[in-house]
């Protein structure tokens, strides 16, 4: 009974107890969510204990088998922290509603933990599809409208397809290995066409759940449909589980001797997904859809980092492989945290500001200063500003990409240069999206009267957000700590060399200052923080000597804009920067080829008094090129089936006769 297993089984037991007790929980939603949060904490503890420890293995009845190794340990930490942080906020959202509605919540968390700690194909799939079913139930239990139903049908449709793809890939792996247990599969890595098929199926299965191109269309619809804390768990935890499954297949189950293209495919797909997700995030007009698109972007980056680690391992550069793996693991952890924080902030804004649309918010910093401050920590990480957690993992990923050309193959070097540019574009677009989100929601003047009624979010919102922000600040200033954990995972996977550049936390100058090291570079956040503090102190001293007259308030200059009319006390919203306005340069520059941009003036009929309206619409190409054709093909086949179904009884009898004759002919031919 290793300590890790004890914590994990405690988490499972607690979740089971909560699930059983929920119908009779009465009004105690707060206690219930607290329990789920505690279970999340236990899972994170189990993950921590498993890092670097000897993998342990148990059977849970004839069907399920669990194993706790370093890789699953790392992702348990990420998922556990997100659940621990997001669950209490759900109590605020519930405000004393019954716990019966929350029954799927512990099942959702338990399924995620099951998928992470799976030791064989069946348990992985049980957890993988179980979490989608529980998430769908959780969404529909809370809000059952046409929009949520459409989102849930997309969510379930993609998860069933993804589950089938994963099952096929495990089957292919098990075919060579003679058993679906991961230990058996590890002993017989796939080669040739089987490896290619496994890679394609894993990218389709785990990738679609993580929002990878071209299977991402459902994510910006499904995640916003849930209440904010559940969206936080879906974007933070569920996507992290999908990335964990991808990492399990890419680096662990398929053995070290995979060729270069094994890593190149996820690298290029990940980079493309990152840029596409960031572009859609910049153009999104609904704060939760914006954050969901940002999830696609960050999932793409983690996938690219995993692909890069596989490439380095294929070119047997273990130190760089460790670097890339550290980038992937750190970015997955940091993304989980800052996405949970941002979704909670969005939830608080929705609860107080009354709307999810950027064009109906604004100026909330005055009413909700604490939420604005905490959200700023998340935005800084998502925009990877220096000293933030996001920047630490971003720096590692860029260093890994910069070290990419050490692999000899020219085609891969060119691909690496292109994906470096794409990841750079994605990072910058993400920064633009996050600044747009924070600026339009919190700064400027309110764009709708409802916003004036906003008050600071309750303690149940700010508490979890503060916890997440604290973790992010800690991870930002001292990334070496997390990096050493990632080093342990690398060692277990046989991906990184313990002493090499690998992960700076361990050796040399970087180690001492808990910074990050890479070939020919080091990022030492503590000294940089001291430098910035020193310069700030210098500036403060300068201004104290010069004297700082108190600023005075006056109407905004705005190049001579007239004061707002009486009936628009908040100023004419049209003169405010709007969501579409902020996105307009990028929509015109980048969205043209990719997102079927359409801008049209809807002028009123000649005599009509109405105002002309500017219609701006952006379509997702994957819907036009993938989902719609699939739907049309299915309907065509269904029409064919209908024709067959409408045959008269006589023709069906003819069919029976034809079948019997065919069988007889086959029998005669086979002699």
């Amino acid at each position, binding site marked *: 009974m290793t300590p890790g297993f004890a914590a994990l089984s405690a988490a499972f037991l607690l979740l089971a107890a909560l699930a059983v007790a929920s119908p009779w929980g009465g009004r105690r939603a707060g206690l219930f969510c607290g329990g789920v949060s505690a279970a999340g904490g236990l899972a994170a503890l189990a993950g921590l204990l498993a890092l670097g420890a000897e993998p342990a293995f148990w059977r849970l009845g004839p069907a399920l088998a669990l194993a706790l190794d370093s890789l699953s340990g790392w992702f348990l930490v990420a998922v556990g922290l997100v659940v621990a942080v997001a669950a209490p906020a759900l109590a605020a959202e519930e405000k004393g509603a019954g716990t019966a509605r929350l029954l799927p919540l512990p099942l959702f968390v338990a399924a995620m933990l099951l998928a992470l700690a799976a030791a064989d194909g069946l348990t992985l799939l049980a957890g993988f599809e179980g979490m989608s079913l529980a998430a769908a139930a959780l969404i529909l239990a809370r809000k059952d409208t046409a929009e949520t139903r459409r989102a849930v049908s997309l969510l379930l449709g993609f998860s069933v397809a993804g589950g089938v793809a994963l099952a096929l890939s495990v089957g292919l792996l098990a075919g060579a290995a003679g058993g679906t247990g991961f230990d058996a599969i590890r002993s017989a890595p796939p080669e040739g066409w089987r490896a290619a098929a496994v890679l394609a199926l894993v990218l389709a299965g785990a990738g679609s759940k993580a929002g990878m191109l071209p299977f991402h269309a459902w994510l910006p619809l499904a995640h916003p449909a849930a209440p904010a804390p559940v969206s936080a768990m879906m974007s933070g935890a569920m996507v992290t589980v999908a990335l964990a499954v991808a990492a399990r297949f890419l680096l662990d189950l398929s053995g070290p001797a995979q060729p270069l293209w094994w890593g190149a495919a996820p690298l290029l797909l990940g980079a493309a997904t990152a840029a596409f997700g960031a572009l859609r995030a910049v153009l999104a007009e609904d704060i939760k859809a914006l954050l969901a698109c940002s999830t696609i972007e960050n999932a793409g980056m983690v996938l690219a980092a995993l692909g890069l680690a596989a490439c380095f391992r294929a070119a047997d550069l273990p130190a760089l492989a460790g670097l890339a793996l550290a980038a992937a693991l750190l970015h997955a952890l940091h993304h989980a945290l800052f996405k949970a924080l941002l979704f909670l902030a969005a939830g608080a804004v929705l609860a107080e500001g009354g709307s999810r649309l950027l064009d109906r918010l604004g100026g909330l910093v005055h009413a909700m200063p604490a939420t604005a401050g905490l959200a700023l920590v998340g935005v800084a990480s998502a925009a990877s500003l220096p000293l933030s957690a996001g920047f630490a993992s971003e720096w590692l990923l860029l260093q890994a990409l910069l070290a990419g050309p050490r692999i000899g193959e020219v085609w891969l070097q060119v691909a690496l240069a292109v994906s470096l540019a794409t990841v750079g574009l994605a990072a910058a677009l993400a920064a633009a999206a996050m600044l747009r989100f924070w600026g339009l929601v919190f700064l400027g003047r309110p764009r709708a009267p409802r916003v004036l009624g906003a008050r600071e979010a309750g303690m149940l919102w700010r508490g979890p957000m503060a916890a997440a922000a604290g973790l992010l600040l800690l991870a930002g200033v001292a990334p070496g700590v997390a990096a050493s954990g990632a080093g342990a995972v690398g060692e277990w996977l046989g991906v990184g060399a313990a002493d090499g550049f690998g992960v700076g936390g361990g050796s040399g100058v970087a180690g001492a200052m808990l910074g990050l090291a890479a070939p020919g570079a080091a990022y030492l956040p503590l000294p940089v923080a001291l430098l910035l503090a020193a310069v700030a102190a210098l500036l403060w001293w300068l201004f104290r000597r010069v004297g700082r007259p108190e600023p005075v308030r006056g109407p905004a200059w705005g190049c001579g804009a007239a004061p707002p009319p009486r009936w628009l006390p908040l100023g004419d919203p049209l003169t405010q920067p709007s969501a579409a306005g902020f996105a307009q340069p990028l929509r015109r520059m980048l969205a043209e080829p990719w997102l079927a941009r359409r801008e049209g003036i809807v002028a009123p009929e000649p005599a009509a008094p109405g105002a002309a309206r500017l219609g701006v619409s952006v379509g997702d190409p994957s819907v036009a090129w993938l989902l719609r054709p699939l739907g049309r093909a299915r309907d065509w086949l269904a029409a064919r089936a209908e024709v067959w179904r409408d045959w008269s009884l006589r023709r069906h009898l003819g069919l*029976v006769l034809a079948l019997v004759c065919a069988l007889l002919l086959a029998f005669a031919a086979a002699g």
Partner: protein
Amino acid sequence: MSGSLAYDVAHLIGGGVLLASFLLLYQRRVAALIGVLAVQGALVALAAAWQGVVRGEAHLFATALIAFAAKGVLVPLLLQRIVARLALDRAVETALPVGASLAAGVALVALSVLVMLPATAGSAGALARVDMVLALSVLLLGVLMMATRRTAIPQVVGLIAVENGLLLGAVGIAGLPLLLELSIAALVLVLVLVAGVFALLMRTRLDSLDVTLLGRHRGEGG
């Protein structure tokens, strides 16, 4: 009886049943159709009796008697009554022209010969092999008849022809437990009863026994 005579007579009776099947395909009128069915039933009963004579097994005689009573007499009478009572239209509407269905019948017989002879090469004597070939042919012809007739009664006749083929085959196999033969005969009776009930219902509900008309009433529209 010398072996060759037994074989010749059985072969003759079997041939007769096959011929009756072809005649069924040929008929245009329902009354004649039922008459040929009765003849076929009688022939099958005769074959059973002859097998009883050849192998000296008493139960075959019982089967022959039951078969004759059921298929030779009772079934045609029931069908006659149903046709008379419900004043059905006399003609047999065919989906496939008669010439074509006969040609198809010949093809089916060829197929059953092609299949059955090599399959039964290893097992019992010539008698059993011929019986199985004939049984398979009559069965396939019965299904062909059901597949090429539009109205309910000819389809039921087709189904009974199939049962006749089965009885012919069963009789040919030595040592088959009696239970089976009894059940075959009994179930034919039940089939006809049920068919009669349907004909009654369809008649009262739909004023015609045209099976294609039924299609329109299928649940969930056309």
